[in-house]
């Protein structure tokens, strides 16, 4: 081992580890093996101490644990201070953070404090022939992919959820756990007053999304999409105009200013396919589009384009699926 490393920030949700942390560890392990580096991880929070071994099972060689009541709330200045101190002490070559809303709020503060480059929202990391880290990220509302190199240390990157492969958990992996007690946690200027509301639906984790757009005539018609989504074990998504109309909460919004999703199956109903919407769903595994307008841009991004009125097509599709389900009885399971 070289004594040099890649640091991975393990994000927590309450006292659990956000799955993106494991995805980052998997990618870090792959790069570390190419560049002869160690993989280090750091976890902050309160009541999270027993989680460190999970990070080792997913690829970390060394885990720094800051388990402290003063870190129980998501205070961006407190977290930044602890992480900046750790980076200054351990001098990682690369520092990876999940591009969750929290990660995207925290990472730039750390980068500015360390005066280093930060590449946002990456969808891939590659090692060039001369051993440089190339960070690949969408820009221009997802219309281009930029390949970025960082000329300062550490190289800092935030990475999107669900773009890196989840590594296999290996409980026989060994590593070192270093428990830290920060003396002073300076969290000046920000007070966490509590959670206002929880998200109602988690589009990021959905395997099937049935999404509606301007082609829907009224709020009640979302029920039609909901019925299809339920049949497929999926959830309902929408384009931005329906959220603006107040038909449904923003948790359901797919797109540049909403959620970025990557389901196995995305069914776009009455969605024309604006750049903003495409930016949120273009990486879906299979895309089906239903639209009356054969020139709608969504068709250029779909595997299957159905030129039809969703009000005719979707009920018939539901009937078809129910009939088969009825015939085959319990033979068909939800995904």
């Amino acid at each position, binding site marked *: 081992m070289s004594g040099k490393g890649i640091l991975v920030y393990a994000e927590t949700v309450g006292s659990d580890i956000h799955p993106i942390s494991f995805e980052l560890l998997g990618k870090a392990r792959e790069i570390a093996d190419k560049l002869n580096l160690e993989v280090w991880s750091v976890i902050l929070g309160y009541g999270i101490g027993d989680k460190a071994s999970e990070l080792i099972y997913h690829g970390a060689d060394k885990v720094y644990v800051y388990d402290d009541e003063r870190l129980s709330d*998501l205070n*961006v*200045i407190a977290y*930044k201070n602890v992480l900046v101190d750790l980076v200054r002490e351990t001098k990682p070559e690369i520092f990876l953070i999940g591009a*969750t*809303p929290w990660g*995207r709020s925290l990472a*730039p503060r750390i980068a*500015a*404090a360390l005066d*280093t*480059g*930060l*590449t*946002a929202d990456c969808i891939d990391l590659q090692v060039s022939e001369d051993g440089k880290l190339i960070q690949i990220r969408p*820009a*221009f509302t*997802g*219309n*281009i*992919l*930029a*390949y*970025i*190199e*960082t*000329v300062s240390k550490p190289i800092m990157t935030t990475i999107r959820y669900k773009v890196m492969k989840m590594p296999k958990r290996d409980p026989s992996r060994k590593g070192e756990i270093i428990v830290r007690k920060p003396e002073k946690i300076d969290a*000046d*200027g*920000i*007070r*966490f*007053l509590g959670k*206002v*509301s929880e*998200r109602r639906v988690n589009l990021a984790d959905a395997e099937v999304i049935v999404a509606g757009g301007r082609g829907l005539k009224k709020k009640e018609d979302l029920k039609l999409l909901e019925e299809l989504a339920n049949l*497929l*074990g999926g959830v309902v998504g929408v384009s931005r105009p329906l959220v603006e109309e107040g038909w449904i909460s923003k*948790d359901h919004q797919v797109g540049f*200013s909403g959620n970025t999703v990557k389901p*196995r*199956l995305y069914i776009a109903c009455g969605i024309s396919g*604006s750049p*903003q919407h495409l930016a949120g769903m*273009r990486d879906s595994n*299979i895309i089906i589009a239903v639209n009356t307008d*054969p020139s709608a841009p969504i068709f*250029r991004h779909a*595997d*299957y384009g*159905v*030129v*039809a009125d969703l009000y005719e*097509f979707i009920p018939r*599709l539901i009937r*078809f*699926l129910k009939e*088969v*389900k009825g015939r085959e009885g319990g033979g*068909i399971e939800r995904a």
Partner: protein
Amino acid sequence: MAQQLRIIVLIKQVPDIEKVRFDVETGRVDRSSAPAETNPFDLNALEAGLQIKERFGGSVTVISMGPRQAESSLKDALARGADRAILLTDPRLAGADTIATAKALASAIRKLGEFDLILCGEKTVDGDTGQVGPEVAELLGIPHAAYVCEIRDVSRDKITVVSDMGDKYLYELELPALLTVTRELNSPRLPTLKDLLRAKRAKIEAWTAEDLLDYISIDQLGFQGSRTRVVKVVIPTTEHRKGIILKGEDAVEEIGELLLKEVLRR
């Protein structure tokens, strides 16, 4: 309540993303193919600033960095009700990544003097990073809240906001502070024709790198001050999509069978 809050709004001029064209061969973004407009998210930041000013008194100063053309976005901000507009414009500021951009903006804010609140959009439609806001906050040593979808309360020395992190959290920040805002925060007003005509004649203050040198050294700005480099740009194609177009009666069965295979019988 005589509060007189000094509010700064950071805005960026971007190409209209609905119209801009991309050259698949060269990976070039043809900025001249589309009209320029103010980054949509920044209009929500400006609206928030104007609403706070109207309620508590104070002033709204708009700052942008970019080429001379960006004056039109600043004039639009004046027409909507901003009091003062400053454009950082200098070839030596060009080619800046997020950290070099944040340093230029933070230096301009320092030069302006005392302030209470900085507002910016959560991200831009061209860079897509969302990093500049929190970086400016760090450089100025002030707290920030990101993805603010609601402003609950403002007082002389505190602001209470809801931050949309998927789950929504309530934070109280001491002023001065910086907020990055979402499009759910408000509906931006439109300027009247009269205001547009008035703003057309307004003078935009143009600052060059020279004006910032009391606060930062030249090697920290523009391309030279950037810590990241774009190696290449690729336009993603949709060639990997099957592109099968279905019509009429058979479509139901074909899609139905696909769903059975891919989802229900899996």
